[in-house]
């Protein structure tokens, strides 16, 4: 096994890992604000990619305009989802929430199949596809876009959560919803905010990954589950540990696919998921917490 090859796998693993990290943070934000694991999270990733495609082809928008357009539309769907499915639920037990978000995810996926059909669609890369040599390996410009955009989003996230009133209010909800309500924070509005932020982040992840992997109505399932896996490795934090979790997962997956077998690539994420849940349910970096077990 040459060093070049290892480097190549690691580099491509890092950019997939960045995608998992973005999706994982989306899971964590909703979980922290509401205690809900949103099984429909992956569908916003799918919507991001496919809506960009439609903005490019049907509305004939340039790429720089198509992207915000599709993020905005995905976010509207996120808001509708929270308003129509989550908020009216009379008995919000964990099992009912699991079932309703699964139902929502199937519904969104089915509607996407109705709109875009079952074909796989390609989106042009943001700036060409001439490989850039790095050491003995090469990366595509799109990989750099993914890493850069992920970094920017994480920084914006950090600023929002630590330096704005509504971000601080959301953190207060994550610590203790009742106490947050007592000091005058509108908890239901924060729940809605969490859905807005995470559907927008999911959509961005879907847009930046689409030029690399193509997109279709059913890409959300696997991407969503792997994003969840990243969040579990990071202990459901909406910060740096989930990013590290995503990167670890992406690299392990890419190395596993390259060195062991590409058929078992998807299994790697789930084996890691089970091991973490069994052995360290608080995440790789978290302190012991009996909440989740």
């Amino acid at each position, binding site marked *: 096994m040459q060093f070049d090859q290892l480097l190549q796998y690691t580099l491509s693993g890092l950019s997939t890992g960045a995608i998992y990290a973005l999706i994982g943070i989306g899971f964590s934000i909703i979980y922290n604000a509401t205690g809900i694991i949103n099984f429909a999270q992956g569908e916003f990733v799918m919507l991001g990619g496919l809506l960009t495609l439609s903005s490019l082809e049907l509305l004939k928008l340039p790429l720089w305009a198509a992207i915000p357009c599709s993020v905005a539309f995905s976010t509207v769907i996120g808001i509708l989802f929270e308003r129509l499915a989550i908020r009216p639920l009379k008995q919000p037990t964990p*099992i009912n929430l*699991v079932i*309703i978000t699964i139902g929502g*995810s199937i519904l969104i996926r089915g509607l996407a*199949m109705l709109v875009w059909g079952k074909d796989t669609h390609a989106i042009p890369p943001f700036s060409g596809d001439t490989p850039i040599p790095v050491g003995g390996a090469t990366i595509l410009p799109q990989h750099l876009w993914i890493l850069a955009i992920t970094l920017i989003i994480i920084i914006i996230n950090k600023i929002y959560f630590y330096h704005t009133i509504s971000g601080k209010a959301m953190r207060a909800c994550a610590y203790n919803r009742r106490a947050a309500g007592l000091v005058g924070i509108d908890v239901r509005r924060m729940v809605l905010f969490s859905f807005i932020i995470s559907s927008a982040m999911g959509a961005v992840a879907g847009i930046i990954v689409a030029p690399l992997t193509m997109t279709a109505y059913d890409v959300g399932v696997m991407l969503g589950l792997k994003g969840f*896996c990243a969040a579990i490795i990071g202990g459901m934090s909406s910060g740096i540990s989930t990013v590290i979790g995503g990167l670890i997962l992406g690299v392990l997956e890419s190395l596993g696919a390259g060195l062991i077998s590409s058929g078992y690539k998807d299994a790697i994420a789930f084996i890691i*998921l089970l091991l973490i849940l069994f052995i360290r349910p608080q995440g790789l970096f978290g302190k012991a917490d009996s909440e989740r077990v």
Partner: protein
Amino acid sequence: MKRDLLLFIGFSLLVLLAPQLFSGGYLMNVLVFVGINTMLSIALNLLLGYAGQISLGHAGFFGLGAYLSGILTTTYALDPWFAMPLAAAVVGGMAFLIGFPILKLKGHYLAMATLGLGIIIYIVFNETVELTGGPSGLSGIPNLKIAGITFDSDVKNYYLIWTATLLVMIFSLNLAGSRVGRALRAVHDSEVAARVLGVNSRILKVQIFALSAVISSLAGSLYAHTMTFISPASFGFNFSIELLTMVVIGGLGSIYGSFLGAALLTLLPEFLRGANDYDIIIYGGLLMVMVMYMPGGLVRGIPSLYRYLVKSKKGEPGHA
């Protein structure tokens, strides 16, 4: 108790007479599937409806039963009657072992862990090509035979599958009404309270998980021996979701509800032939609507809807 017995006898008679009412060959085939799905949703319901523990990986146990039976009877030329219990024992043992770590998790985490387990099993079906035939499937699985009768026609399979289904039903009805059933419901309502009252909830949850896996495995074996061909596509994540939908629509914690849910979701696609693949939209919509407006499922929802309608006709305010 007497009423329960009468209900069960009535239901069995209906099952016995159904082939006389619907003599069409195709419909018999659909009713065979209703039977298999009823067994599976009862298995999931014992776990979800009674013990309150979710599983999104039950298609995996169903598939393991089917594949173990299929491989043992084709590659190793074992007798199907011997392969079925062997498969069930292996699957049950596996579920028992994995049950200890997995059932320590709760709610969302349990859902994700079982989902992951189901997907790993599905990937193994696809990738171990020498053993399972991979994505193109495993064919030539022998039919079951008893006393010179080979179960190779739709009508014969109907009686075979429904005998098994009725046995699973009566077993589960008895289990639900027994001490174990009451302990399970106690765990469902409050695990802490159940433990305080001396229920060993940890072992109990693992046992019911294993039992549920064993029933699913038996249903899988029967599926393999009636279809004679199996492929991984039948045992994926989507089927786990379909099973969940059946249980929720029928009614959590109701054995007859599981039958209603299984029958509805198996027959529905037959009536929606034109809708093709779009039936998943209907599954998604149904799941959401049921959880929002009829959380007790059809078995409880229809009677209360009826009472509500009757009362509002008389001009009295209806109580939900």
